[in-house]
């Protein structure tokens, strides 16, 4: 019996164990309506039901101690809700869901204050958008686009080529978005990008990647490929500026899968420090900071661990973690699972970068839900962060879908207009 025969037999056997598939539960909205930004809710506001592992509420959350049950630290002076909205970046770029016309994701440029889509940028022919990062000027973004090239040798895994584009936005003009190819190149072998971050001054792009994942025919150990490499590039010339690598073979994480910023790579506001979770998409893992002006080329000895990522099974786990732009604190988003339900609500926590200790709970989801997650998308100085909260609620046997956008400040939620039309949130698909 061939392997193919065995596969078919196993598939048939598996089909025999399937119970009847539950009926489709469509929302009452008309098609087209549900993809538009919603009007802000009243009353319970943004605490709304969302579908399994999918529906997302994007929340701009200021670092306000909505609930502090971890220690005596007092909350900093909280900006008002309006001030928090004003201090957060206004424009965003989001990689949307698959465009049925070409099978790739469009880049949607939007105004988070008005909900207006300024431009929809289709990916250039032959490549698909995979990740986006933004500078501090609220106008400059860099997008990673990928394409597969021919295998180097017969039966080898085809290398993934990354092409980089600058997306400049100009709200209020006739050409609100301009996409320009950058002369940046990663190594020619297949490279899994797990981190991308544009410096605040838009002059340098940092990319964390794992090269050399292609192996000989039949080799299943694709994920244990080359050494993780952090490299900075000049955006003007495309030339590599600095490179740091982790010891090969010591990190066995399998990377890839469509998300470009698993490591939550980010810069501090002064452009001197990079922060990232390492190893990415794994546990145990550490948040590390690296001074880009320092000597050396080792990713591990050249960087400093500032936080051991909390146990994924506990409430203060970190689904995502970003160093604040002032480098003094870290904002962490947690995830809860169906087995825990929202007895353990998804929440945002604040950690000290100096001590690595949990300072306080910034915000905790207050509604009922089946499961949920909180992810940090952007952090700024003065205690401002933008995050994503996803929550799922099952009503009887039906999962309902909804989402809403808003700013949380001083214990108040102020809706924003950042639609999350994709089925899932992946780090690197949304940038401010």
């Amino acid at each position: 019996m061939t392997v193919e025969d065995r596969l078919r037999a196993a598939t048939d056997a598996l089909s025999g164990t399937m119970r009847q598939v539950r009926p489709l539960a469509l929302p009452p909205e008309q098609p087209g309506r549900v993809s538009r930004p919603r009007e802000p809710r009243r009353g319970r506001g943004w605490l709304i039901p969302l579908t399994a592992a999918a529906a997302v509420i994007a929340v701009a959350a200021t670092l306000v101690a909505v609930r502090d049950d971890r220690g005596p630290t007092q909350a900093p002076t909280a900006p008002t809700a309006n001030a928090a909205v004003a201090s957060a970046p206004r424009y965003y770029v989001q990689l949307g869901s698959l465009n049925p016309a070409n099978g790739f994701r469009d880049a949607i440029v939007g105004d988070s204050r008005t909900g207006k889509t300024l431009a929809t940028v289709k990916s250039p022919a032959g490549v698909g958008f995979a990740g986006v990062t933004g500078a501090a000027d609220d106008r400059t973004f860099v997008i990673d686009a990928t394409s597969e090239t021919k295998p180097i040798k017969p039966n080898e895994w085809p290398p993934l080529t990354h092409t980089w584009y600058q997306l400049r936005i100009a709200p209020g003009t006739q050409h609100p978005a301009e996409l320009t190819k950058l002369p940046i190149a990663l190594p020619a072998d297949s490279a899994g990008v797990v981190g991308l971050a544009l410096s605040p001054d838009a002059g340098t792009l940092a990319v964390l990647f794992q090269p050399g994942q292609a192996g000989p025919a039949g080799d299943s150990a694709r994920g244990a490929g080359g050494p993780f490499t952090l490299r900075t590039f000049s955006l003007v010339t495309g030339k590599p500026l600095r490179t740091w690598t982790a010891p090969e073979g010591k990190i066995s994480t399998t990377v890839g899968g469509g998300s470009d910023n698993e490591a939550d790579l980010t810069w501090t506001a002064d452009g001197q420090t990079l922060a990232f979770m390492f190893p990415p998409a794994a546990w145990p893992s550490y948040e590390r900071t690296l001074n880009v002006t320092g000597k050396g080329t080792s990713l591990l000895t050249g960087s400093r661990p500032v936080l051991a990522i909390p146990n994924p099974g506990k409430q203060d786990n970190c689904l995502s973690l970003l160093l604040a732009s002032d480098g003094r604190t870290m904002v962490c988003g947690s995830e809860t699972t169906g087995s825990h339900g929202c007895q353990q609500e998804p929440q945002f926590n604040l950690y000290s970068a100096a001590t690595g200790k949990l300072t306080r709970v910034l915000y905790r989801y207050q509604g009922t839900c089946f499961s949920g997650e909180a992810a940090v998308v952007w952090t700024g100085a003065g205690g401002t962060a933008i995050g994503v909260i996803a929550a799922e609620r099952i009503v009887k046997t039906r999962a309902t879908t909804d989402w809403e956008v808003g700013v949380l400040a001083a214990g108040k939620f102020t809706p924003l207009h950042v639609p999350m039309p994709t089925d899932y949130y992946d780090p690197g698909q949304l940038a401010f």
Partner: protein
Amino acid sequence: MDPLTDTHSPPVLAGSPAGQVTALYQAYATGLVRLAMLMLADQQAAEDVVQEAFLGLYRRWGSLADPGKAPTYVRSSVLNGCRTVLRKRSRHLPSYREPHAESAEALALLGEEHREVLAALRRLPARQREAVVLRHCLGLSEDETAQAMNISRGTVKSASSRGIATLARILKEES
């Protein structure tokens, strides 16, 4: 016969968008859940992914240039959903998000031979696994597999042949 529908003819699409999407769901859901189960080993998670894919289709129904391509579109959405679930699982300890108990019970009903094959399948790298599942478990053509995975036919060939070779090696090692 479409391997994802187990029927000889596609559903007739007429009426309201909700009605058309529901008709597609009735025709394709079982096959797509089977696809997601092969990827995720958990029927509850598989059904969630398929439900979400059809919700996405419903939301974008008005922008579909050719409703006839809806099955291809939703198949790609299911694969994307599976990738995301697997990515999230990879972030946690293996015991953090076990398959739903009912799915585990159902898998236990499979014979040892089939369990070994399915376990080996899930040890493949993601794209090899997708290519093998679509080509050899579900019997899609190279073109259909390429469309679903958004890759070239050549890549389908290399990924599936490499996946089969890897599977053979894993199964041989475990025998």
